[in-house]
């Protein structure tokens, strides 16, 4: 058996750094298939996040240094950047990142106090405020843009030749009229190296690798990813009895933010449920909501809304999933205390 590392004394900065390291394979894969726009987004979002963090700390009259070096703002910036469309214009990136840090985090009291996932709050806010930019500026991995095209897209001149809707969105719009066989003739599927979806499959695999490393390092537990991915798998497999109308299982799993969210978004400890069983239920809840919103909602992907909704349910989940304390007959359920 592999000897996993014990729980060594770590500090918050190290935990954040490990998450950032685990994101590197995914970032590389995304840059390869979706072009340099990914890196532009990352740079802009991280810088904005740091500036917003510093600004808020100054306004709140807190010490700047300990919060800036713990990298929590950097991580928020990276997460929101990876969630945005790869051909997003600069203002969208900056607005999303600033909203994440300021509205998602500092409005509630900063690190450790936010009730919802900051990155998903920023994402959802942009999706509502700038729906066109958020749904049409996704890069088609078959037409990876070069540096200049990506740069002009970043400056706000998008090129319709390389952008479009996401694969998940395609199933909702264009593929609706097609049979499953017709849809599978799309070059995205026929040219895929691994037989799933061109580009997306590698990105998903890269995020999976980073996520597994985090589990191995005991930064996150298996409950969250297993909960989300299994739920998505089971529900989409159940409804795929009619392949002509249903979105295939693997599209649900790897085309959207599924893997990325399972390991890096839902695992935000601050806004999620906290006990192991609670994390499982939290992830299952996100999985169910994601499927429902993806299938019956207006939006192409649904992780952000599902996460936000479940964030509000997290305290309740915590109340009902306390483990049984040693020496007690049953676990303590329900809320307690007078305040």
């Amino acid at each position, binding site marked *: 058996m592999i000897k996993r590392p*014990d*729980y*060594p*004394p*770590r*500090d*918050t900065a*190290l*935990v954040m750094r490990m998450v950032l390291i685990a994101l590197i394979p995914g970032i590389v894969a995304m840059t390869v298939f979706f072009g340099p726009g990914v890196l532009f987004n990352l740079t802009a979002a991280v810088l904005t996040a740091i500036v917003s963090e510093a600004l808020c700390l100054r306004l709140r009259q807190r010490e700047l240094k*300990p*919060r800036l070096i*713990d990298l*929590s703002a950097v991580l928020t910036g990276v997460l929101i950047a990876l969630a945005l469309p790869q051909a997003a214009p600069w203002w969208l990136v900056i607005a999303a990142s600033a909203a994440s840090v300021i509205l998602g985090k500092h409005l509630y009291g*900063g*690190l*450790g*106090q936010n009730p919802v996932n900051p990155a998903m709050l920023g994402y959802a806010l942009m999706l509502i405020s700038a729906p066109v930019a958020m749904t049409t500026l996704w890069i088609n991995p078959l037409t990876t843009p070069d540096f200049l095209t990506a740069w002009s897209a970043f400056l706000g001149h998008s090129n319709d030749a390389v952008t479009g809707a996401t694969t998940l969105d395609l199933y909702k719009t264009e593929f609706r009229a097609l049979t499953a066989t017709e849809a599978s003739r799309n070059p995205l599927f026929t040219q895929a190296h691994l037989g799933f979806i061109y580009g997306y499959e590698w990105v998903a695999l890269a995020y999976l690798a980073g996520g597994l490393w985090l589990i191995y390092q*005991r930064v996150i*537990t298996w409950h969250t990813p297993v909960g989300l991915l299994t739920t998505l798998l089971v529900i989409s497999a159940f409804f795929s009895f009619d392949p002509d109308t249903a979105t295939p299982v693997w599209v649900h799993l790897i085309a959207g933010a599924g893997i990325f969210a399972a390991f890096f978004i839902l695992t935000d*400890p*601050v806004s*999620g449920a*906290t*006990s*192991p069983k609670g994390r499982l239920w939290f992830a299952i809840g996100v999985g169910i909501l994601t499927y429902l919103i993806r299938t019956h909602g207006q939006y192409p992907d649904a992780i952000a809304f599902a996460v936000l909704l479940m964030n509000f349910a997290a305290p309740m989940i*915590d109340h009902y999933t*306390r*483990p*049984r*304390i*040693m*020496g*007690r*007959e049953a676990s*303590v359920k329900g*809320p*307690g*205390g*007078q*305040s």
Partner: protein
Amino acid sequence: MAEYQIRRCDRQLEGGIHPETHKDLSTTEPCVFVDDPKRLVFPIHFSGGGPGEALVAVGDTVSQGTPIIKCQSGIIHVASRAGTVIDITDHAITHPSANQSASIIIEPSGLKEQSYLDPLVWPFDADTLRDRAIEAGILGLGGAGFPSFKKWSDGTQTLIINAAECEPYLTADDTLMRIDTHSMIRGACMLSRTLDIKTIVIGIEDNKPEALEAIEDALKESRSDCFFDIVLLDTKYPSGSERHLVWLTLGIEVPTGSRSVELGVIVHNPGTLAALSRAIDGKPITDRIVTLTGEALKAPKNVIAPIGTPINHLIEATDTSPSSLTSITVGGPMMGYAVTEFTAGITKTTNCLLARDVEIPPESPCIRCGACATVCPIRLQPQQMVFALKGGSLDLAVHEGLGDCIECAACNAVCPSHIPLAEWFRLGRFEARDQANEQRLASEARERFEARNARLERIAQEQEAKRAARKAKTADALEKARKAREQTA
């Protein structure tokens, strides 16, 4: 030869941590006696066994073994060396929650005068043994200082010797088991014979091969008819917690709110049993093994020191200048507490003095990562409890299980935000006990009040009845008199 078996524990401690043990630091040097210090300090209320009263006055001459303090629980503490009581005054003491308290100061004379008890001769009954333990001042020497005789109830089936010593740095028990094995085994056997215990379990972590060997040798020589079940535990903190040791060795989960004693299991530290063996021979506790360790000490080792020896005397015994240290930890790095006044004397529960420079990083906000919950050996959610306590909601923390916390501080060791969780819990538990006490006092007062009301009412009723009876009697008499008058008329 006593019958025994050695087996590996087949249960796994849930949670827990593997801290660096640093045990070699103090076990490479042999255990030695320290020279008698210039003065000995005995806190009257904090020597273990509850608040006490002084049995000696200033100017009294005492021998080694003269009773000097009698505690509320009956436990008697004796002078650890012959000498003169030079003062009874407020003095710095070694205690987690008090810095100063009334203490008896004895200046050792260097004479070998001893006043011991008469040896007990077998057969004796449990009551005799209890009395002896009281007179000899036998307390749990593992750190809690619980009066041992209180655990010795009839119907006890199993005695567990807690030889786990899972705290890092600590080697006092390990040392005792190596050099005083026979006393420990004899104490365990005597106790078992008196209480009719059939099985003696020794729970020992697998990082003490020398002690294990010594125990085996001692058992081969022993003529006891007890069965010794030696359980090798994985080295993991806190396997030596009483609850966990009972579960690891016997598979019994002690229910919340009860003690293992109620389930017929008593747990004793090796030192306690060795002291009991000597007490049967008439010698009360006057000395104990103390681990002097930590990177800040020049010559760490285990020593046998008289109870009451000031801390600075022991620091000097390791070739270290006390002025080079600002604070010293009494106990291990996990559950110990800091003492800054080195004139305080060691007590019967002082198993270790730990000196090291640790930089405590600044605390940052909790990110609810749950590392603390993963290592919590009793499956609490420390992150939720500390959230409640910081928010001032003691009730909520108690609801989350604060009362079950064993204060092992495994959570502290893994917290990435360096939150002193265990300190919060210690404080919270203290407050909760206070609150419960207050509630108890309030309900007692209410009961008294209600009883008084009832009594007053009863008295009033009785008086009323008496009055009515008297009235009736008077009326009766009047009636009779009137009738008599009428008749005569």
